[in-house]
């Protein structure tokens, strides 16, 4: 009895703290939860960072768990915002009976839950509100498949369809497509797991989980912010990306007009990387396949990571320094009439259990998330060239594929997808 009363009192205290001020709620809640532990840790972090003058600018002034990324805005978060260490991509199928009204109800719940979770506030009906208190830069990004638009009685963009089949593909249906996509990212895997579960609890009356793909990058604080990620082949991955906040990025990524204006498209490819056969390739071969140095991602023609490759440069023997079969050359379309497309890739690594009983010790790869205003004009030509010739194809196999339309961001009081569905 007394134990129950105590717990109830504590819950009330927590709620009261959260209500005291919208902005201060997170901090107040955290303080009540474990004031001593949180404070000690904060101090320890602060001292550690201050002691190492190497990176004084990055000295933490607050716990990463308390940091939030705004949910509301012109664009959905989770695309132009820095990619956090952890992400989960969820593909859902609408239940057969989910009609237009049910789609709208579902999206209202989803919008409200996402807005609260990303602010570090427990959604309504959250049975584990403590897990929502430290969002750790949580973002929730929602995409529509053609099925959702059809169910809602709205025309889908012409590009919103599965990609054409490529000879390199070995697609597994259970890893692709879907009516609804959630991309949830956070610096903390526990915050991420809770958010994903809460969002799914709000959705399950209207949809079922088709696939779930969990991915990771470096843990927060491991490398300097802005460092290009590395994949499990050890390659610097994503050097050619346009930089968020630049006109080049805006042109490449955001849809300029129509119901999806301010939105974008997501091409999500699960690319299996055969790390076991990759092991057989020596360092020179690996760099030639890529066209870049492994050490720093610089083109084989020299300079730094972000210096332009010199595709005309030749070796003493007259061969291109950046080989014709290399990934960077094929992706850029240097030798093609229709080259020069720009996409924004925001990939995550995956490393899961290999098939039981098999000889392989790894099942690894890349959750290749590519955002672009028009996948047919931007993504498809690149993919076609790579499918035709790219030495990396020897060690990589697309096993999942999906295309989603990402509606623009929601203003406060709006529902995600409102401009598309209303």
């Amino acid at each position: 009895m007394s134990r129950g009363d105590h717990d109830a009192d504590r819950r009330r205290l927590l709620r009261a703290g959260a209500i005291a001020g919208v902005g201060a709620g997170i901090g107040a809640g955290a303080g009540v939860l474990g004031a001593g532990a949180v404070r000690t840790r904060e101090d320890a972090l602060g001292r550690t960072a201050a002691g190492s003058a190497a990176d004084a600018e990055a000295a933490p002034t607050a716990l990463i768990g308390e940091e939030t990324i705004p949910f509301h805005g012109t664009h959905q978060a989770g695309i132009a915002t820095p990619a956090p260490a952890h992400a989960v991509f969820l593909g859902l199928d609408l239940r057969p009976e989910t009609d237009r009204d049910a789609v709208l109800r579902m999206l209202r719940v989803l919008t409200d839950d996402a807005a609260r979770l990303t602010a570090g506030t427990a959604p309504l009906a959250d049975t584990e509100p403590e897990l929502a208190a430290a969002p750790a830069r949580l973002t929730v990004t929602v995409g529509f498949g053609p099925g959702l638009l059809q169910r809602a009685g709205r025309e889908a963009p012409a590009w919103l369809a599965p990609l054409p089949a490529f000879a390199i593909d070995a697609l597994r249906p259970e890893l692709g497509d879907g009516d609804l996509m959630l991309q949830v990212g956070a610096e903390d895997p526990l915050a991420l797991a809770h958010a994903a579960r809460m969002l799914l609890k709000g959705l399950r009356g209207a949809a079922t989980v088709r696939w779930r793909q969990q991915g990771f990058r470096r843990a927060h604080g491991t490398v300097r912010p802005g460092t290009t990620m590395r994949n499990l082949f050890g390659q610097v991955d994503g050097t050619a990306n346009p930089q968020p906040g630049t006109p080049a990025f805006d042109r490449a990524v955001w849809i300029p007009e129509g119901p999806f204006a301010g939105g974008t498209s997501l091409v999500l490819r699960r690319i299996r990387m055969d790390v076991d056969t990759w092991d057989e390739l020596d360092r020179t071969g690996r760099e030639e396949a890529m066209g870049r140095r492994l050490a720093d991602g610089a083109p084989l023609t020299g300079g730094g990571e972000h210096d332009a490759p010199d595709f005309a440069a030749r070796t003493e023997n007259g061969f291109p320094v950046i080989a014709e079969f290399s990934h960077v050359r094929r992706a850029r379309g240097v030798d093609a009439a229709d080259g020069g497309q720009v996409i924004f890739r925001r990939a995550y690594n995956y490393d899961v259990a290999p098939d039981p009983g098999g000889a392989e010790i790894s099942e690894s790869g890349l959750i290749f998330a590519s955002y672009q205003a028009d996948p047919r004009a931007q993504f498809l030509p690149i993919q076609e060239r790579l499918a035709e010739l790219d030495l990396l194809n020897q060690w990589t196999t697309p096993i999942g594929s999906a295309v989603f339309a990402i509606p623009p961001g929601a203003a406060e009081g709006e529902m995600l997808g409102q401009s598309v569905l209303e």
Partner: protein
Amino acid sequence: MTASVPARRPVLLALGLLGLAACTGPDDSDPTPAPGSAASDGGGAADSSGAGSAPADAPIAVADAWVKAAESGMTAAFATLTSTADAPMRLVGARSEAAPTIQLHETASDGSGGMSMQEKEGGFEIPAGGTLVLEPGGDHIMLLDLAEPLLAGDAVEIVLLFEDGAEVPCTAQIRDFAGAQEEYASDMDGMGDMEGMGGASDGGGEHAGHEGMGR
């Protein structure tokens, strides 16, 4: 009272997107606003009413009001009520078009490891400047003999009634929820469906009953 939930849905759509607080504002004390009265303002109405203010004559702020989705029968509503009064306030009842009968319930251990709920005689006191949390497994508002299915993603208007005559309207968001399955005390009358609170809404029809998932 004739239920008009479908007609109100356009209104509720806008209200359903409130941020943190679901209480209506001082100028929106009519518990059954005409369709369009709130929706016409779009986000602006939501923003102003989302501030958690209350009518000047009822110093009670309602936050995070929500109702467990149910197809029929009964369900429960929850919220956090914060008083700015300098004297205790007593919540003695509620009314809503969603249900003809509404009771205030408390939850207590039934002495055999379970929890049972029963009507709370005299309602709930909110101390001066204090907070009352209505939550699953604790004090809550029971909606009986639901007029229509309450579907997750919609919302219902509930007017909270206080002992001093004050009325505080609020908008409660409907959410699917697996919990709040306490047994009812055996001496309860008029509880209708004794199977437990209604089936969860699915937003469109039948689905694999997540109500039944073992917890």
